[in-house]
């Protein structure tokens, strides 16, 4: 009796697991199906078959010189985000601590936010020489305002009563930062990384047009000149894969760091 109910539970679990996988795959399967359907009616240079795209992807992943282009782009995204994050934290702390800094810096950052990525590309080409430096500059400058505002928001949203409680023990600055500030802003910082990751992956291809001799942006330009749609798709997908992978890592960090959170039985 017990054995049957146990094996029943086991198979239920399998069904549940299968369903979760299915739900995760379904949206992508739908997109793929629509594309594949279109490929039946249009010439290959407009809508190439997904089978072709798959082989092109595999070629990129298995060929070291092609894959190193993907890695270069991923590295540029991460370096840009890290740089913007460091500067964003510095500016964010300044803005929260001083009214003057707030009044002065916030409008400047908003002004920067209005400048398109392509304009930064032009400026970077005129101002700087090194290709990598140009790209880093563009990446940092385009994601900096968002990071700063998110850090400011997180710092301002720190619960005042908890802050006063920790303060009442007279912590040193370092301890206050470690015990109160860091854990309470971490959720919003991680969300900021997730959001900015999406932005950065879109900016990086534009930034790579400044004369990079490698990277996903450069490769996309090549495919455009060859009118190779399957190649363009394959290279685009590499970037998407990278974003998905990094999002997944961030989610893992989240689940670990926020295991203290209560879960309501009533969902939103």
């Amino acid at each position: 009796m017990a054995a049957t109910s146990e094996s029943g539970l086991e198979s239920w679990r399998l069904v549940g697991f299968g369903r979760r996988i299915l739900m995760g795959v379904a949206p992508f399967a739908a997109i793929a199906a629509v594309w594949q359907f279109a490929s039946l009616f249009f010439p290959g240079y407009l809508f190439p078959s997904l089978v072709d795209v798959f082989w092109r992807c595999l070629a990129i992943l298995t060929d070291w010189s092609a894959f190193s282009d993907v890695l270069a782009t991923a590295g540029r995204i991460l370096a840009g985000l890290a740089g913007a994050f460091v500067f964003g934290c510095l500016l964010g702390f300044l803005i929260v601590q001083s009214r003057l800094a707030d009044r002065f810096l916030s409008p400047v950052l908003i002004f920067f936010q209005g400048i398109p990525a392509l304009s930064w590309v032009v400026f970077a080409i005129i101002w700087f020489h090194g290709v990598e430096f140009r790209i880093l500059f563009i990446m940092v400058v385009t994601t900096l305002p968002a990071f700063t505002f998110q850090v400011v928001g997180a710092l301002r949203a720190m619960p005042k009563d908890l802050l006063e409680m920790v303060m009442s023990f007279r912590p040193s600055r370092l301890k206050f930062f470690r015990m109160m500030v860091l854990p309470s802003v971490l959720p919003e910082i991680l969300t900021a990384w997730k959001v900015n990751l999406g932005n950065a992956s879109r900016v990086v291809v534009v930034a790579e047009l400044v004369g990079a001799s490698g990277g996903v942006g450069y490769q996309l330009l090549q495919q455009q000149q060859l009118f190779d749609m399957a190649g363009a798709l394959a290279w685009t997908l590499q970037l998407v894969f990278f974003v998905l992978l990094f999002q997944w890592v961030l989610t893992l960090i989240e689940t670990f760091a926020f295991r203290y959170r209560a879960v309501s039985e009533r969902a939103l």
Partner: protein
Amino acid sequence: MTSKDQASAPEIRFDRVSKVFGSPDAPSGVFRAVDDLSLDIGRGQLVALLGKTGCGKSTMFNMIAGLSEPSEGTVLVSGQNPFRNFDWFRGKIAIVFQNDRLLPWRTAIQNVELGLEMLDIPKAERRDTAKQWLSKLGLAGHEDDYPHALSGGMRQRVSIARAFATNAELLLCDEPFSALDEITAQKLRTEFARLVRENGKTAVFITHSINEAFDIGDRIVVLKRPARIAHDIAMSADVDLEEREKIRETIRASLSQ
């Protein structure tokens, strides 16, 4: 029926203190929460501050704790300004807030250890002390629970443990037992009074319950809104039952006005 200071220099001194919230051009205008209040509390006293809700008790409490600054007058604790000389009080003041204020990202025992970490007490010792306090407050077995998994009363007890674990000279309690059932509250009240008296600590105990004030205080200070002293009564052992009843009636009458 006025109190005499037990020690020469008062531990806590309010000298013509007022606290005003807001500003004249704010939509709600200014609000005077504490008005021209003078009060001395001697070393080793256990004072119950009694007053109706909203009369400014927590506001006074925040000024003693150095978390807010008086608008007029001075507050001195051990002869120091708690707001200006903030760091001087490290390890000297322990506070039980009106709500539990536990850090949600720390387990019960880690919350209790918080104050000890500020004092750089070694990890093993910290654990031991925290564990003892938790079991003293009936929370043995819940050391590793996160606050969201504890009941309201349990959380409040963790916050009491957090304050007491630091072994500070001055204890400030803002209605610490009001979230607990009467029997637990009674037990903790007795334990609290015993702790304070045995260790010669000074304690300010805020409450809105007349009975609680009688149970605990060597001295009962009755406040009326905006925080002003209506009565200041020393409760020594030679105040007999009949007199106690009279005092109780006086306080009740004055609070119900």
